[in-house]
């Protein structure tokens, strides 16, 4: 207020500073955890190579055999990197979706973006385009095109129905069921080989990830996170409700539409390489909110870090649970996610903020 404010008296509100300090500490801890699980994941695998050998290969690649280098750097590293990229991307998408739609259940999966990608992939598989050598590429393209189409439908309906958040959510759910039904139809039409391909897609997998794919995911991830972080104060204001955000000067409709477009590209890129992975986009923002609160300067990066940690851990388990076979990572995230989610919902505990 304009009542004579002495510019020299010190700030009385120490509570806010200590809160921010605590949040920074949580972010730092999550970043450390991310680095730790990254290395552990590289050391773990189904090849029978000992953890100690794996660590030596990592730290001193020069002294390792070419076989050991192949396992660690060419087989495990791309999968682990992809787990980081996709984990962060899905968590980021879920985090901002929950904010703009004001709904704690919103994430790429519930809005049908993941299932439309799954349908796109299945369509390519059943049409037999994947018979050629570049099969994986076509499948990814099919998945990307379909999920973008689903997003376009959501976006257009939002555009013509005044960006109302309930409309967006209901459209997403309708899309989810539509593509789920279409996918089932395709499964009926598929032959044995195609069916196992489709199933591979439906449950998600990091095992076919390549470094090139990771670079694409990373590029989109960096661009989107910059855009989202740039708007972090506006998102925080939006948490108070549309009317209050608008009264503070936020153009709610524009923000919602812009976010929807960026989220579409981000999610489509994330799911088109690895298939359907649910729950990451749902639980990561919740954990993040418990740890660092609603301030999106902390909530956004924290969600990404949690998403990365959870998906790396899931990747690790997928290699050891049924070794030497790889257990589908999408099933694992659900198995980890569902009980944890129940715990979050049922215990009203809040850790920080």
């Amino acid at each position, binding site marked *: 207020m*304009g009542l004579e404010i002495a510019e020299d008296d010190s700030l009385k509100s120490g509570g806010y500073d200590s809160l921010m300090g605590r949040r920074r500490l949580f972010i730092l801890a999550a970043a450390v955890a991310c680095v730790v699980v990254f290395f552990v994941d590289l050391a773990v695998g189904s090849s029978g190579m000992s953890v100690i050998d794996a660590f030596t290969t990592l730290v001193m690649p020069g002294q390792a055999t070419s076989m050991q280098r192949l396992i660690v750097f060419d087989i495990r590293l791309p999968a682990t990197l992809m787990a980081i990229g996709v984990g962060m991307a899905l968590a980021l998408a879920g985090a901002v979706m929950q904010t703009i739609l004001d709904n704690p259940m919103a994430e790429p999966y519930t809005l049908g973006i993941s299932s439309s990608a799954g349908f796109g992939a299945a369509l390519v598989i059943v049409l037999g385009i994947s018979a050629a050598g570049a099969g994986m590429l076509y499948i990814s393209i099919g998945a990307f095109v379909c999920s973008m189409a689903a997003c376009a439908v959501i976006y257009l309906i939002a555009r013509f129905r005044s960006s109302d958040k309930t409309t967006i959510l209901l459209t997403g759910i309708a899309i989810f069921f539509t593509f789920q039904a279409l996918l089932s139809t395709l499964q009926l039409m598929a032959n044995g080989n195609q069916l196992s391909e489709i199933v591979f897609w439906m449950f998600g997998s990091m095992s076919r990830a390549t470094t090139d794919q990771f670079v694409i995911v990373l590029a989109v991830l960096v661009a989107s996170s910059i855009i989202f972080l740039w708007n972090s104060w506006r998102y925080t204001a939006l948490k108070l409700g549309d009317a209050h955000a608008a009264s503070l000067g936020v153009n709610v409709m524009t923000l919602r539409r812009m976010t929807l477009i960026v989220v579409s590209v981000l999610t489509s890129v994330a799911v088109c390489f690895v298939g359907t992975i649910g729950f990451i986009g749902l639980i990561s923002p919740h954990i993040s909110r418990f740890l660092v609160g609603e301030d999106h300067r902390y909530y956004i990066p924290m969600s990404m870090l949690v998403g990365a940690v959870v998906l790396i851990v899931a990747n690790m388990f997928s290699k050891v649970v049924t070794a030497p076979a790889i257990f589908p990572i999408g099933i694992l995230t659900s198995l980890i996610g569902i009980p944890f989610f129940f715990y979050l919902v049922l215990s009203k505990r809040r850790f920080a903020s």
Partner: protein
Amino acid sequence: MTLKVEGITCGYGGKEVLHGVTFSSDAKLIAVVGPNAAGKSSLIKCIAGQMHHGGHVSFKGTEIGRQEAVSADMVGYMPQQHMNPVSMTVYEAILLGRLNHIRWSPSQHDRRIVDHAIHELSLDPIADKRINELSGGQMQMVSIAQALVKEPELLLMDEPTNNLDLQKQLEMFEVVRILSEQRGLVAMMILHDLNMASRFADEIVVLSGGEVYAQGKPGEITTQKMLRDVYHVEADVVEDRDGLPHVIAYGSLDEGGRT
């Protein structure tokens, strides 16, 4: 004229609720009164540029009534509905009032303004409390503080006295009055309590059925006739010790209100 409202029309889904609202005023403290669903909130939303509307609004010669005026902090607007009960602290929520000035970290200046508002509205004891743990009145005070730290030239408040106890209401009026004297703030408030409106406002605008019924000084506005025409109540108007009109209501004149 400081504030000029000319032929404002607006509606929801094709149903018009304001049928050309026109008034202008030089007063610093304006109260808008009228029965439920008269269109008070709609009018203030139009002035704040939060709603599509026909007609024009100008303030000190500048055309307002657009979102840009809010974004530029010329106009502050406090909505009637509560904020969502999220797990933000009171301090964080009030700080959001400085949204248009904050790039990444809030500056010392922004922080001082927030500190000051918190102190001025006696919110210090709850500054670090989460807003989902507040009482209705505390929540209302946070909303008010958030609107004040914006430091607007024109402050529009939709029922700011909701949920507030008597002392808090008077405190809130006092803070706004001081701001209007010191900084030339013009405040327009929607109020239901006619006695409070008389006490606070230099000028009262009575809205009824989407139109201006009357506008003027409290003494001219608050009459038995107005209470009968607009509110359909039977009442006496007496003078208090400051010569301000005081309403004593006896009962509703409508069938439904009689038992």
